[in-house]
Every structure is written in C-alpha cells, then in structure tokens.
C-alpha cells in the first residue's frame, strides 16, 4: 500500500468509527484532494462530512477549531503546509491555547494535516520544512510520519487525540510503498520514536525523506564496517527523548539530519537534550546535517545543494566516528 493510500485508509476507518470525524479543506471533496489523499471519501461520506472550502485558510481552520470546541473532531487539510502560515494565528492563538486559557474547560480535538518540506522543484513558497513553526508552541503536538504504516497508525492516533495535532506529510513520500496493517485498531501512539535500523557505532536521528537518505548512507557505511543505528522520532512533540538518548548511550555518537534550515531547528533541540542528558556518554560532539540557510531555489542543481545529501550525511557520520573519544 502507498503512503497516500494509508492516509486515505486511516481517514476512512476513523470516519466509519466516529461520526464526529469530518474533513474540511480546499479541494478535498469533488477534486478528491490536490494530492488525492481524500480520494473516494466524498462519494462515501457525502458533503456534510467531506467539506470543500473556498481558499480561506484562516477562516476554515478557525471553523474547524470552533467546531472542535463543540465536540466535533475535524481533520483540516492544508493543500500544502506552507499555506498554514495564513492560519498560523488560528493554530497558535486559538487551537494551541484554548484548553489552557479556559482552565481546562474547552479542548480542541483537531488534526491539521497536509504535505510540507522539500519536494520536486516547487520553489521558495511551497517547499518549506514547516514543523519548526509549530513544535515551539506549547499545546500543539507535531507529527512527521516517514512510512506508510506510520502514516496510518499515527493519523488514526492523531484523530483520536483530544488535542490539536499538526500532521505534516510529504509530497515526496505519497507514492512510497510499504506494509500497512489492515487492522482498524492499528494505532501508533504519539510520542514514540522507532529504531529503523539497529547499529552499534553511531546514532543517526532523521525523519521523512532524510530518514531514507540516512538509510542509504548507513548501507554504504556498513561496507566500511561502520554500524549505524537510525532512530526516527516520528512525533517531534512530544519528543521521545528516552529512545534517542538510550541509543546514544549505546553508540556514544550522534548525528541529526533535518531538511529545514539549521538555525534553531529540530537538530538544535535534539543536540541540546542529548548533550544535557548524555554528555558523559558522548565520544564526539553531536553533529548536525541541515538544509542550507537559504530560501528554497527553483533550479534543480540549487535545490539539490540546499537539501542535505547522502554525501553530507556520510561526511558527518565519518566525522563523529573518527573523532577521538575520551
């Protein structure tokens, strides 16, 4: 099953399971989704539950939040997560703070999902790694699912969660195939990292497209006799620090890979908590491989240069492995 089909299946199953679940967004109904994630859902559930909206991100996100305050469980689709910037105030000031600000009276069980991150020559305004705009905000959960099974299991958990969840997919992964349990109760809890590849010499923390690139690098290094462990956080907030720190305690070396620009990025946070919690276990400083600190350029070669490559990941792993430990 493809990643796209896994998302579709998760939506379909949750809509069958719970009549309060509905989908709101641009082109989610008649058009069946800009990336066809909602294919067939309008036919199956009708326009009351698959709601096409005009291009009004702030408006329809706010509608989703208001509806969630009264007990519905809306899944709001961002055609691309870059458009969520137009709804940033609703997400940050309304959804994330409602439960706290109301002293626990009103919660907002909403999922805001759609693709984000580098894709294929989508240029500056459609390629941003959007997670950094959200994981800073208390009250939001942030998910980045790398595989079809994770896409299904995490989306279902997100829909069942009583809090706002930011669920960022990727254009580059929609066609990726993988084993997906056909079980309607297949859930992956939020806040649980997974070891994608066991290893003993170095821990690489990576998610989404970067996780696949890190896997390639790991295969190549295996030929050199370097054993790489890859940890995929899956949920960026809450972050499963225990699994990551546990892996680093075993390997004594860590590399973080992220597609976004590095300054105050995910890598900064992961490097910080590894240093805080496992400093004495480290044999080398934590290395970061990040996207260049530039807007995403259009030209193919420049786009390649902006995003972390396998070679850069290889260099970083070699650097920490050959560092002299204490």
């Amino acid at each position, binding site marked *: 099953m493809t990643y796209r089909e896994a998302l579709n299946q998760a939506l379909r199953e949750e809509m069958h399971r719970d009549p309060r679940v509905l989908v709101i967004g641009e082109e989610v109904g008649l058009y069946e989704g800009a990336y066809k994630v909602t294919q067939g859902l309008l036919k199956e559930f009708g326009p009351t539950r698959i709601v096409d909206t005009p291009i009004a991100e702030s408006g329809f996100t706010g509608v989703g939040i*208001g509806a969630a305050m009264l007990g519905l469980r809306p899944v709001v689709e961002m055609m691309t997560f870059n458009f969520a910037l137009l709804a940033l105030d609703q997400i940050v000031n309304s959804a994330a703070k409602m439960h706290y600000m109301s002293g626990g009276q009103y919660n907002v069980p909403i999922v805001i999902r759609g693709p984000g991150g580098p894709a294929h020559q989508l240029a500056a305004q459609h390629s941003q790694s959007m997670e950094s705009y959200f994981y800073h905000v208390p009250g939001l959960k942030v998910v980045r699912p790398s595989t079809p099974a994770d896409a299904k299991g995490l989306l279902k958990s997100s829909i069942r969660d009583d809090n706002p969840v930011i669920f960022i997919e990727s254009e580059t992964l929609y066609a990726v195939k993988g084993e997906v349990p056909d079980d309607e109760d297949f859930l992956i809890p939020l806040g649980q990292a997974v070891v994608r590849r066991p290893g003993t010499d170095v821990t690489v923390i990576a998610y989404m497209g970067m996780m696949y690139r890190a896997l390639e690098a790991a295969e190549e290094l295996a030929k050199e006799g370097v054993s790489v462990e890859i940890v995929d956080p899956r949920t960026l907030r809450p972050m499963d620090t225990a699994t990551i720190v546990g892996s680093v305690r075993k390997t004594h070396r860590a590399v973080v890979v992220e597609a976004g620009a590095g300054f105050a990025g995910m890598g900064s946070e992961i490097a910080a908590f590894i240093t805080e919690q496992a400093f004495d276990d480290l044999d080398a400083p934590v290395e970061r491989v990040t996207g260049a600190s530039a807007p995403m350029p259009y030209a193919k070669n420049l786009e390649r240069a902006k995003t972390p490559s396998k070679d850069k990941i290889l260099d970083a792993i070699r650097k920490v492995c050959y560092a002299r430990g204490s």
Partner: protein
Amino acid sequence: MVPNVVTKERPASAAALDIDLAKRLLHDMMLIRRFEEKAAEAYALGKIGGFLHLSIGEEAVAAGATSALRADDYAISTYREHGHCLAKGSDPRRAMAELFGRRDGFCKGKGGSMHLFDKSHNFLGGHAIVGAHLPLAAGAAFAIKYQGGDQVVVCYFGDGAVAEGEFHESLNLSALWQLPVIYVCENNRYAMGTALERALAETEIWKFGRSYNMPCEPVDGMDVLAVREVVGRAVERARKDKSPTLIEARTYRFRGHSMRDPAGAVYRTKDEVEREKLRDPIVLFRDRVLREGTLAEADVRTIEKDVNDLIDEAVAFADASAEPPVEWLLTDIFKGD
C-alpha cells in the same frame, strides 16, 4: 441577487413591556456596570493586572442580545467580554476571581480579564486577537448544524474587527454554508484610538452583510429593547432557517480603550464623550420603565441594591480566593495529560 435583506433603520420597540423582562434587562445592565466599576477600582488598587477593557456605556448590547437567546444558545466574544459573559448568566464571583487571577476564577486564574470562558453557560470565551474569534463562531454554528441541533451562536466583536480579513472570511463562509450565527458588531466608533472613518472605506458596517447575501441591519445599541428585537429576529432566522445575520449595534464606550487609556481623550473630544453619556443605556431604560409605569422607583432601588450586594459579594469572593498553586503552571496544556 440579495434575498431577505432587512434594511430597517430603526425597529419599533413599542409593545407593552413585560415586568419581569424589564426587571431582567435593568438588572443585567446594572450588574455589568457595577461589576466593571468595581473592577476598575480593583485595578487601581493593583488587584487586577494586565489589560482591563471596560464596556461601560455598551451594556445594552450584551443585555438586549442575551435576552433574545435560550440558555443553551452560545455566545463568544472579544477581550471586552465581561458584560457578555455576565449577561449569559455566569457567576459574577467566579468572573471577578478570574480578573483577580485567583484559583476560583472560571479559568483557574489562567485566562484573566481578556479570556473569560464559562462552559456551564455555553460562553465560548473572550478572545484577544481582533477578528480571530469570528471563524470560531462560524465553527460553533457549523457544529450545531452538523449535530442537528437548533441552538444559535451570538458573536460579539468591535468595529475594529471589520477591517480584518477574518471578518470577511467568516461572513462569506457563514452565508455560503448557511450557519446559525448572529454577528453583532458593537460599533463604538473607535478601534482603540482609530476612528471609524480612519479605518473603513464603508462606515455603515451593517452593509457588509449585503455583500455576502446575508440579512443585515443597524440598530441603536443604546436601546436595550431595540437590540433585543433585532437580535430576536435574527435568532428566529438562525433557528428556523440556519441563516446567519449581521447586526451593527451603534454604541459608545464611556471609558478609554483600556485602563491604560483612562480618559480616552486624545482621539475624541471631551464634549463628544459628555454628549454620548446623555445616551447612557441604563439611564434611558430606567427612565422609560418608570415613565411608562412598568416599574416603580422601589423596584429600581431593589434591583440596584441586589446588584450592589452581588458585586460586593463577588469582590469579597475574589479577595478570599487563593492564588492558583504553582503546580498549575503545567496543567491543562493538553487534555488528558
């Protein structure tokens, strides 16, 4: 192209007035006024911090609109929401405790003056980003319709919100989807210090309803019965036909924008403020019910005493309530954690 658009300039509110209704309206307006006068005193004493926005002068909108609602209808508002919350029936003691930042406040002291929420009275909160709660109101109305209910949502906002994109997005979505929401613009003529004419190309705010094929009308926001009547019509449309309405209630705030703008005199003249005070909605209504014989002087005195007692009690309650325990800093961030 524009069906059902009501454009009456001034509704008649001449029908004989029910005694209980007269008492309720006067009580609610006086309660809001007294609550805010006492809040201003407490602010001066340092018992209330941050921003405190008073609605003194605008009480007829909250009282009149709420009187047209059922208890299970919803209301949502701005950071100038004390009156809307109290009119909905919320306990003034817990509202005052919230302003004081105490544990017995509606929001455990985490919300404050700008963020009163009372789920037990379907009060969906005070929201302090101008315009941002209009889509939330549409969403609440969406949920009512989705669930097959017949409640309605009243959404209060100021003239300042009209220049925001979310005002227009919300009106469009509410009309497009036929949602049972009543947008009540409290036009007090100043968005903070910016006069209407300096902010809007169309200063007849109710007319924006026409652009969205939505019933719309202006009303004298200093006339509590007129507000009640206009909102009542809108409620009926919303309940029966799931139709939204835009109402422009023309009102005036006697105090500054917030306690940090005590005089409110830089952007408007003292003469103007004094002239507007002659339209005090409480005085107008009290004089009317006395003149028409609906209520006697003794009735008014009783209401006044009741209100004063309630608010004294609210202040005493807030004073006696403890600060929230420090551990509460990290509770309520997520539900279920």
